[in-house]
C-alpha cells in the first residue's frame, strides 16, 4: 500500500514538473522554485541527519569492535570539530573554522586530487596498449592531445595544437554528441518507466 502511494506521488510530481517546464507564468515559476528548492532542501536536510547518525553509529560500532580504530576516531573528531568551531566562533575570515578549513581540509583535498596524476601514470603504463585498431586510435589521440598540451612553442607546437584542436572539434565532438544523444534518450525512457510505474526497483519493490 505504502509503495502504491509513493508510486502515485512520483507520477504526480513527474507529470507536474514536465508541464511546469513549459510555463513562464509567475505562478508556475513559483511552484517550480518551491519544489526544487524548499521541498528538496527539507528532504535533503532530513536525510543528512539520518546519514550523519548512521555515520556515527557505524564508526562507534567499529571502534567498539576494534576495527580500524584510529581511522574511525579521526573521522568522528573531524565530523564533530568543524560544527563545534562554527557554532562557537563563527565562520568568518580568521575564525578557527576557517583556519582549519584552509590549513587542514584544503591541503588534504588537494592531496587526494593530486593522487590522480599518479594514477594516470600507472593507468597509462598498464592500459594504453595497442591491442586492436580501436585501442590504437585511442592511444594515438591520447598521445596527440598530451603532446599538444605540453610542447612549449614553435612550429611543431603550433602544428600539434592545431591537429589536436581538429581532433577535438570533429571526430571527438561527433562521438561525444552521439553519446550525449544516447544518454538523453536513456534518461528519457528511464524517467518515463519510473513515472508510469513499470520500473519499481528504485522503490525497493519488485518488478
Amino acid at each position: 500500500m505504502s509503495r502504491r502511494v509513493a508510486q502515485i506521488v512520483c507520477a504526480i510530481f513527474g507529470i507536474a514538473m514536465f508541464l511546469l517546464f513549459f510555463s513562464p507564468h509567475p505562478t508556475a515559476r513559483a511552484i517550480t522554485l518551491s519544489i526544487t528548492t524548499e521541498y528538496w532542501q527539507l528532504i535533503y536536510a532530513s536525510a543528512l541527519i539520518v546519514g550523519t547518525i548512521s555515520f556515527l553509529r557505524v564508526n562507534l560500532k567499529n571502534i567498539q569492535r576494534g576495527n580500524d580504530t584510529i581511522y574511525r576516531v579521526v573521522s568522528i573528531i573531524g565530523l564533530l570539530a568543524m560544527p563545534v568551531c562554527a557554532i562557537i566562533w563563527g565562520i568568518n575570515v580568521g575564525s578557527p573554522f576557517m583556519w582549519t578549513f584552509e590549513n587542514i581540509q584544503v591541503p588534504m583535498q588537494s592531496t587526494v586530487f593530486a593522487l590522480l596524476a599518479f594514477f594516470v601514470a600507472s593507468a597509462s603504463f598498464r592500459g594504453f596498449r595497442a591491442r586492436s585498431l580501436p585501442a590504437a586510435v585511442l592511444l594515438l589521440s591520447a598521445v596527440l592531445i598530451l603532446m599538444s598540451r605540453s610542447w612549449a612553442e614553435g612550429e611543431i607546437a603550433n602544428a600539434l595544437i592545431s591537429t589536436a584542436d581538429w581532433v577535438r572539434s570533429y571526430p571527438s565532438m561527433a562521438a561525444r554528441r552521439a553519446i550525449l544523444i544516447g544518454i538523453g534518450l536513456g534518461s528519457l525512457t528511464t524517467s518515463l518507466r519510473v513515472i508510469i510505474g513499470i520500473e519499481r526497483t528504485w522503490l525497493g519493490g519488485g518488478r
Partner: protein
Amino acid sequence: MILLVPPTPDPWFDIVKLPTLIAAIIAIIVVLYTTYHKASRDKYRPRPIAGLRAVDDAIGRATEMARPVLFTPGWGGDIQRPTTIASMNILGQVAEKTAQYDCRLLYPTHDPVIQSVAQEVIRESYVRTGYPDRFREDDIRFVSTSQFGYAAAVEGMISRQHPAAVLLLGTFEAESLIIAETGNSVGAIQIAGTDSTIQLAFFIVACDYTLIGEELFAASGYLSGDRAILASVRAQDMLKVIIVLVLIASIICAWIIPTATWWKF
C-alpha cells in the same frame, strides 16, 4: 485622451518551447507504444552487452573467494538524476544475487538521500529472495559529501576490504580513476558505467568492462529480463532513427534553402 490599456496577462505557455513540447510528446508516444504493444514487445531481442553478462560472473567470483562486492554510484549525481535511478535499478538486481550467494555487498555513497534509498532497495531485494537475515544495514554507508573525502573513503574501503568485484555505476567525476585504479590494484573485476563522457575514457583504460552512456539505462531490463522494460529500451532505437531523419532533412534543407531557420530551434 488617455487610453486605459489593460495589462497583458502572463501567458501560461511559452510558445518558444513549442518544438520541445512536440519532440517530447513524440518521444512519449514512441515509449508508450513500444512498452504496451504486445506484438512489438515480444519481437524485441536486445543485443548482448558484455559488461552486463559479466555481473553474474563477478558476483560468483567474489563468493568463491569469500570477498565482498563493492557497488558505488559516484559523486556526481543526486537521487533526482536519471543515471542514479538507473544505477538503483541495477543495484536491486545485484543485491538479489548477492543475497542468493550469501556474498557481502558494500555500498558507500556521498549522498544521504541516496543512502536511504539504497538501504531500502537492498533490504527489499534480500527480503524478496528469502534471505532477510543476510542483510547488513551498516554496509550501506554515507561517507562524505565532499568529492575527495568520498574518494578517499571508497579507496580506503577497497584497500582494506579487498572486494573481488567493484561495480562503478552512476555519475562520476574526477574521483573515477582514483577509485578504478585502487580497485585494479587489489585485483578486483571492475564493471563501470557512467553518463559522464569525460570519465568514460578513464574507465575504458582502468576497468574490465565499461557500459557507455545509454547501456547503463538498459541494464535493469537486461539483468531482470522484464519484457516491458526491455521493450521501452527499443524506444530509444526508434527515437534515434527519428533524430537521424530530422538531421538529414535539416542538412538538405539548409543546403537547398540557406536562409531557412525552421530547424534551428
